[in-house]
């Protein structure tokens, strides 16, 4: 690639300001169109029938009565989705997750779907489908699923990553090991060793907009899919593969997206909507209910983790190990592997080992959730870090700083870090006024750190300049949190035009080349990089046109502050030409002016954060109230600080919900007991204080503006920060997340009983 993506340290005029988001008016007036807001002539209503059993053989599905109901236009089962995946295991699992194939693998697994003229008819049709199930033994707990006597969910699952290939199938899909150094020697050198186990329950991304799409398939294979998604291009390739469509004939348009957080990176009902439309030859709108969203889409893993950390009395960590058991739902996933890579990422630990076990259970297929897998490992590590600091009598922040990862530290997954921001974040925490504020009796303060890789990936943008000098920037990453504002600022910065002169829009899959999914905090990082290069491309064109207008050689033209200027002998009297002037003449100087860029935006900068939390525990009810919360995170470069703060605050709020309340509760029957926002309680406005933020800017050397991703990292520290604060408030160490009132009360009672025994004994 001709463009150099290394950091230039340039001075900014537009970047770094708090401009208003361009999609604001549509969103405050109700005009913005989300997944469920599109309609097509002749559209049908699609609904999905789901398994009420955790694990069952599907003996027979009788759809005849439903098909005969007037107004029903299509009924589908897995028979309508033949396996075209051709040995691609990933796609085969997605296909089976979209609709059960002979076996229901979890409560909520789709078994059939209908399309009818209206909602009432579709609902009636679902009731007329008769499914004969034969219940099979199930397991939903990660530790139980690993036990030798656990019911084995898939007879094809043989643990990968073991030195000797197993002879029998099990629920353990994969073993991963990461680390370096000599762990045994390290522990031998330790003065203090703390070993502890933790559990975290399953949580959901909890985006407020349920999955929704409008699908239309013609008999000739040309198809359209309007859908709420983080990855229209990935939805296109997966849907095309599952349905046997040509990629170019399937146009996917991403609607405004009502939250995703990783949950909208994978297809769920979209292939079903396409299959229904193909069968009925009518457009089908399929909107999930909240119950379906909880039972059948995207949760994160529930986990069970053992940590062991050894340190000298002087506070140097000599060795550390992690054993991580993560369930990925009914299919194998990379979740424990990711945890192995992130658990100790904030620290410089010479001797470390992380072993991960990816486990299959009868729960929905786990999807990425904001810094996937990192929060649970960090909860275990950060809790134990406080215990070690306590045992050696050192301040918890000082202990972290003493062992903090820096440029040159080896990451748990191998490579040596470049410039990173965790030391700066911890130092900023130490200096923050929050740390000096007084706490009352019964209140506690906790600090914790977090890491996320951030990713780049395939990216492509088009930049077109109109004859009035205003600019269209078409991007293929979805705007999940204000990226259109940041990208407009970046294009304006490069071109030397005003923010309001650039209009960014998210293109459909037929209008732009492939873009990877908007995940891994990559939106502004990668589309920003592509926008810079596309603008520089356009500037070369603008210079050429200016040369023609001034009748000088193009080599004599320089571009400064949005203007072309001729340099050199004899050009002193020539006028400067603004972008607007050049654009106005473009029809007669060679036609439209555009810039393009296709790039693999590799080299994402790692994200690090440190959080401070004050809270109070009600000893009567076990309820925890967050009193004050501060996020410190390295952004590399904050393009629009408003939306960087927004990412920090939103991620922290999700982490707080995870730490205190949110959990999937399964009954003994393997069915989800709380698939609704009443019983799965995400934080509401009255649960939270203002969330203070501090943006650090340690440039990422592999981005021209120094940008790192900012979206995910701050969901990582809250679990540990809150656990530590509860311990400091009550003297009780919580080892099970969420630290809900009932668990906190139990822990307080147990501690009180223990005290009584000790004093009585």
């Amino acid at each position, binding site marked *: 690639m001709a463009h150099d993506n290394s950091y230039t340290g340039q001075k900014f005029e537009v970047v770094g300001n708090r401009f208003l988001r361009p999609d604001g008016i549509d969103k405050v007036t109700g005009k913005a169109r989300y997944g469920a807001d599109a309609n097509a002539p002749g559209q049908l209503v699609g609904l999905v029938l789901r398994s009420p059993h955790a694990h069952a053989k599907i003996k027979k599905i009788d759809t005849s009565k439903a098909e005969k109901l007037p107004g029903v236009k299509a009924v589908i089962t897995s028979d309508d989705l033949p396996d075209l995946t051709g040995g691609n295991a990933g796609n085969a699992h997605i296909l089976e997750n979209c609709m059960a194939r002979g076996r229901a693998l979890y409560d909520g697994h789709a078994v059939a779907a209908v399309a009818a003229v209206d909602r009432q008819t579709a609902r009636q049709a679902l009731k007329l489908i008769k499914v004969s199930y034969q219940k099979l033994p199930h397991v939903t707990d990660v530790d139980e699923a690993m036990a030798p006597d656990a019911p084995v969910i898939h007879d094809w699952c043989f643990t990968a990553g*073991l030195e000797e290939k197993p002879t029998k199938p099990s629920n353990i899909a994969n073993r991963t090991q990461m680390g370096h150094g000599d762990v045994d020697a390290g522990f031998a050198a330790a003065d203090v060793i703390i070993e502890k186990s933790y559990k975290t329950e399953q949580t959901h991304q909890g985006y407020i907009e349920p999955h929704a799409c409008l699908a239309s398939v013609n008999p000739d294979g040309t198809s359209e899919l309007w859908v709420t998604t983080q990855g229209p291009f990935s939805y296109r390739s997966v849907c095309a593969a599952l349905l046997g469509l040509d990629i170019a004939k399937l146009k996917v348009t991403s609607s405004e997206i009502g939250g995703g*957080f990783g949950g909208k990176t994978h297809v769920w009902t979209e292939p079903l909507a396409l299959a229904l439309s193909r069968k009925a030859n009518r457009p089908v709108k399929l909107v999930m209910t909240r119950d379906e969203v909880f039972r059948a889409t995207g949760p994160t893993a529930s986990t069970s983790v053992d940590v062991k950390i050894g340190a000298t009395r002087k506070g140097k960590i000599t060795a550390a190990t992690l054993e991580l058991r993560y369930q990925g739902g009914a299919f194998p996933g990379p979740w424990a592997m990711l945890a192995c890579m992130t658990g100790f990422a904030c620290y410089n630990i010479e001797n470390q080992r992380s072993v991960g076990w990816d486990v299959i259970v009868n729960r929905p297929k786990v999807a990425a959730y904001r810094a996937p897998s990192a929060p649970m490992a960090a909860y275990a590590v950060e809790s134990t870090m406080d215990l070690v600091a306590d045992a050696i009598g050192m301040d918890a922040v000082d202990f972290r700083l003493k062992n903090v990862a820096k440029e040159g530290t080896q990451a748990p997954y191998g*490579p040596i870090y470049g410039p990173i921001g965790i030391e700066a974040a911890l130092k900023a925490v130490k200096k923050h006024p929050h740390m000096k504020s007084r706490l009352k009796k019964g209140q506690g303060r906790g600090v914790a750190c977090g890491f996320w*890789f951030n990713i780049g990936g395939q990216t492509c943008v088009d930049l077109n300049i109109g004859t009035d000098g205003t600019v269209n920037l078409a991007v293929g990453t979805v705007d999940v949190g204000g990226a259109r504002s940041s990208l407009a600022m970046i294009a304006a910065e490069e071109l030397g035009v005003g923010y309001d002169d650039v209009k960014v829009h998210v293109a459909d899959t037929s209008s732009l080349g492939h873009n990877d999914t908007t995940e891994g905090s990559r939106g502004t990082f990668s589309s920003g990089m592509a926008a810079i290069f596309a603008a520089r491309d356009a500037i070369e064109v603008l210079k050429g046109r200016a040369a023609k207008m001034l009748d000088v050689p193009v080599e004599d033209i320089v571009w400064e502050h949005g203007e072309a200027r001729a340099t050199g002998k004899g050009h002193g009297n020539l006028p400067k030409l603004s972008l607007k002037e050049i654009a106005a003449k473009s029809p007669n100087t060679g036609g439209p002016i555009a810039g393009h860029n296709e790039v693999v935006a590799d*080299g994402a900068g790692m994200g690090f954060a440190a959080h401070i939390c004050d809270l109070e525990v009600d000893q009567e009810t076990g309820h925890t109230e967050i009193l004050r919360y501060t996020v410190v995170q390295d952004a590399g470069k904050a393009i629009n600080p408003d939306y960087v703060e927004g990412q920090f605050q939103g991620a922290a709020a999700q982490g707080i919900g995870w730490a205190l309340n949110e959990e999937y509760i399964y009954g003994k029957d393997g069915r989800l007991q709380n698939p609704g926002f009443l019983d799965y309680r995400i934080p509401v406005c009255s649960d939270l204080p203002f969330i203070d933020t501090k943006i650090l800017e340690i440039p990422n050397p592999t981005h021209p503006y120094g940008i790192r991703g900012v979206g995910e990292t701050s969901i990582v520290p809250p679990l540990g920060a809150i656990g530590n604060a509860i311990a400091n408030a009550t003297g009780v160490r919580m080892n099970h997340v969420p630290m809900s009132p009932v668990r906190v009360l139990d822990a307080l009672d147990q501690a009180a009983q223990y005290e009584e025994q000790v004093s009585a004994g």
Partner: protein
Amino acid sequence: MHSTRQRNTKNRSVQVSLNGALRSGAGGAASIDIEAATIAELLTKLAERYPDMSTHLEKGIAVAINGTVYRDDWTQKIPQGAEVFLMPRIEGG
């Protein structure tokens, strides 16, 4: 394949460290020496030498060169003496 090696007069052998499940694909080795000037060349040779690794390579991997993680750009050059890590490909939320 061998002609590319001849173009380079210097020995382009790099030490590649393996992590996670990739290790078992290479018979348990923590690091291997391989001659490669680019990521693409490295991956081709790995697949030739360790057929067991091909499933991992197909599933998706990333290559870290001197601390920078490359997930997709296989044209990336590997400088002499570079620190090279092969690791599983990550995704995000």
